[in-house]
């Protein structure tokens, strides 16, 4: 393995700024990946319990949702979309020979695809959630 040399911070500012994990896109994508990962983990614990409760009490629910849950779902779907897309970016950085070179571009691709997916999902979901109110 070749030796990795990190330039002093003063030089980094003067040159391109940041390395793969320090500063800029590389670091922020990592922070977001971590936060979304933890959030999804806790959601999943509750989610499996709620699916189980439907059965345990033989509770024949007529409806799973209310507007507050609906907004929570919106946040969750946003989080999982980012985590999934950025996860693919991490995998490409690790296994694709040009991955490190394009990591910054790929971050903005992740952001772009996320915006498109979320724009496709959010309005539809909100309509479904709020057209339920008052039923």
């Amino acid at each position: 393995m070749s030796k990795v040399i990190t330039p002093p911070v003063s030089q980094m500012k003067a040159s391109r700024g940041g390395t793969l994990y320090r500063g800029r896109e590389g670091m922020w994508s990592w922070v977001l990946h971590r936060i979304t990962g933890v959030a999804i983990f806790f959601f999943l614990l509750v989610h499996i319990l709620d699916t189980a409760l439907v059965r345990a009490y033989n509770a024949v629910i007529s409806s799973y949702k209310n507007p507050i849950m609906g907004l929570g779902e919106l946040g969750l779907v946003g989080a999982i979309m980012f985590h999934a897309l950025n996860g693919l970016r991490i995998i490409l950085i690790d296994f694709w020979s040009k991955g490190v070179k394009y990591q910054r571009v790929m971050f903005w691709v992740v952001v772009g695809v996320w915006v498109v997916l979320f724009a496709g999902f959010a309005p539809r979901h909100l309509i479904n959630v709020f057209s339920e109110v008052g039923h």
Partner: protein
Amino acid sequence: MSTVAAPRTPARPARPARRGINWEKWGWMYMRISGVVLVVLIFGHLFVNLMIGHGVKAIDFAFVAGKLANPFWQVWDTLMLWLALIHGANGMRTITNDYVSSVAWGRVLRGAIAFAAIALIVLGTLVIYTFDPCPNVPADQISLLPSFCRA
């Protein structure tokens, strides 16, 4: 004037390479392999449950019962359950290793994570394979059951 340890100084002196299975490496591989599979499983799950038909509005007892009575969705949900929980638990382990410096607390937290993951894998798997889609309900609730229960 070196009061702060130089960056990248390992907490413990590096151990000589150990023989046997390199668990950290396979954990690392697992995060990536399960990640790729989970993209398909979770996006499929979200699409079917939130986008098709009336989305969340259509999720009720009959919807869940209908899905869990179908072997295709049983396998889908089982894979998603196991892969996601192990992936998430292993990720949480990485994070505790990063932030928890106390050996005792680290043990407690990793134990709690492992316990939660195993308990929920068992519970979730039981739910998938023992779900009764046609429970005995009062007459006024029969309309909430999947249509095949009335046949």
